[in-house]
């Protein structure tokens, strides 16, 4: 199993990715027949990019960031504002979402990268709240609580041809393409030397420093990168919603991405965040159609996961797949969690 894993880590596109992309490509053909709609597929893909980017910080680097919604939201606003004030070009506006959110992330990283554990966590919350408040209060720029409306799904201009993305199906395929690129890029990233150094720092900052690594710079850079990709996803989300709203930046929504990532199993699996997003958004629509209190049930499910399957769904599946004992899997999940707060001290 280990050998397969290692050869997969060197691949550009793994078999899992191939099957996933193929399966996702068929979604618009049948999703309406099971009572759902293509827009849900768009949402799941965009949030998956966001959650994967978030997991670079939480899972790969072990940094507890609880205010990540800020960068998702900033990306959405940047996309809209670029469209209105700079140029209505898809590529420029998506690049703006990436860059502006990355700059916001870099600014925050300057203040937090020398902090650990609870202090790190709360600094991310504080900055998240600051960005959120600014978004709500700057009516003139962001539209305040009403949101930044009338954002258009710009056509994909390829030079020789221009593809209209206004319809949900064509936009779905566009997002799927972007999702594919993002997944491949992040897969490469976590298995690159850079990704391994980040994973090493998560396990012991002290040792990494004595091996000659500038721990601060790595922590700051992965946070910035994660913020930039989150912002990119936010830009797509603005297109999907045809608007940008401040509520994705709230603490609640930042908490949801943490929940999705953990329920899915982001601490032990690359795919955990995607699994979590799928479960969360599908549950929202399916259970939400039956009862208003779907968050109650999701909260109970989350508590159960934390208590009994801290490695998350992907972790449990991987355990069954690899025919390992659940006991050792739980230990693995446990140690991954422990590492979230830095070195992880035994008690």
């Amino acid at each position: 199993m280990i050998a397969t894993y290692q050869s997969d880590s060197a691949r550009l596109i793994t078999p899992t990715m191939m099957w996933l992309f193929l399966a996702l490509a068929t979604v618009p053909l049948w999703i309406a027949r099971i009572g759902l709609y293509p827009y849900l597929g768009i949402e799941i893909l965009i949030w998956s990019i966001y959650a994967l980017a978030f997991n670079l910080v939480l899972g790969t680097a072990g940094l507890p960031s609880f205010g990540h919604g800020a960068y998702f939201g900033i990306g959405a606003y940047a996309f809209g504002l670029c469209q209105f004030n700079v140029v209505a070009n898809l590529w420029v506006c998506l690049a703006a979402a990436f860059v502006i959110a990355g700059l916001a992330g870099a600014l925050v990283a300057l203040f937090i990268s020398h902090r650990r554990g609870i202090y790190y966590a709360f600094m991310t919350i504080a900055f998240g709240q600051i960005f959120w408040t600014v978004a709500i209060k700057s009516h003139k720029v962001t539209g305040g609580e009403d949101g930044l409306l009338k954002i258009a799904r710009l056509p994909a201009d390829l030079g020789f041809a221009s593809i209209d993305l206004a319809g949900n199906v064509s936009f779905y395929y566009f997002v799927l393409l972007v999702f594919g690129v993002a997944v491949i890029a992040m897969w490469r990233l976590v298995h690159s030397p850079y990704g391994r150094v980040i994973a090493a720092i998560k396990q012991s900052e002290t040792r990494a420093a004595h091996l000659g690594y500038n721990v601060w710079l790595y922590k700051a850079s992965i946070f910035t990168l994660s913020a930039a990709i989150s912002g990119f996803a936010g830009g797509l989300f603005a297109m999907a919603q045809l608007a940008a709203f401040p509520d994705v930046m709230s603490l609640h929504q930042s908490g949801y991405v943490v929940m999705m990532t953990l329920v899915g199993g982001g601490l032990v699996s690359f795919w955990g965040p995607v699994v979590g997003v799928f479960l969360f958004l599908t549950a929202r629509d399916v259970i939400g159609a039956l009862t208003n209190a779907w968050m109650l049930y999701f909260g109970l499910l989350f508590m159960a996961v934390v208590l009994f399957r801290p490695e998350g769904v992907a972790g449990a599946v991987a355990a069954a797949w690899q025919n390992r004992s659940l006991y050792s899997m739980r230990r693995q999940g446990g140690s991954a969690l422990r590492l979230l707060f830095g070195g992880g001290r035994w008690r």
Partner: protein
Amino acid sequence: MALIEVEGVHVRFGDRVVLESIDLAVPEGEFHGVMGPNGAGKTTFFNVLTGRVKPSRGSIRLAGEDVTGLRPQLIAAKGVARSFQIMTLFDDFSARENIMVGLPAFRVRGFDMHRAASADSDLAEQASDILAMVGLTDRADVRAKDLSYGDRRALEIAVALGQNPRVLCLDEPTSGLGTDGVQRLSQLVSQLKRKLTIVAIEHDMEFLFSLADRISVIHWGQVIARGAPQELQQNEWVKRSNLGRFA
């Protein structure tokens, strides 16, 4: 000129003086032992040497270059490697990967974000060579946390060796090892002797006295005695503080 030159190093934590006027000159290729009772300041001395603690006064020079107060990563990049008394291996990494991450060739590629780390067979080979040196070849793919205690100790040293250092700082390398383990370690260290400059904190007097060229005894934050093992056995201080009792 000595490779390591420590002059008048003081360390204070608040009101507490932990190290007081430490001087030390270690010539290239020497195995220098550091001993003393618990709480004497030995580990703090290592922390100063490797950049983890800034001295409040004094200077440290490495091959003539002033490195006082440089951050750990910069000192490490200048060829000072250390092992830890309380082991802090990368527990979720395999033994091989623990070493790979420490290789200078890996460090240079630290910001490489697109090629797979595992695809570089050159790095893997370098790591395998070092694993062979410490006798861990058949444990290469075992995760560090699943290794036995003795193997973890060996891996500690292997990681430091992987850094291809000029100076190797070992913090209580024999601690917790059985007789077999200590023997294995003695063999390894005697192979490394002369090739590397080694500074080792050690409680195992037999180990230290048989291998070290010179030994410094630290007590109450000061060097109270220094010399070749045979000289030290005659030293009043050492005798009185009951450190030379095995002799």
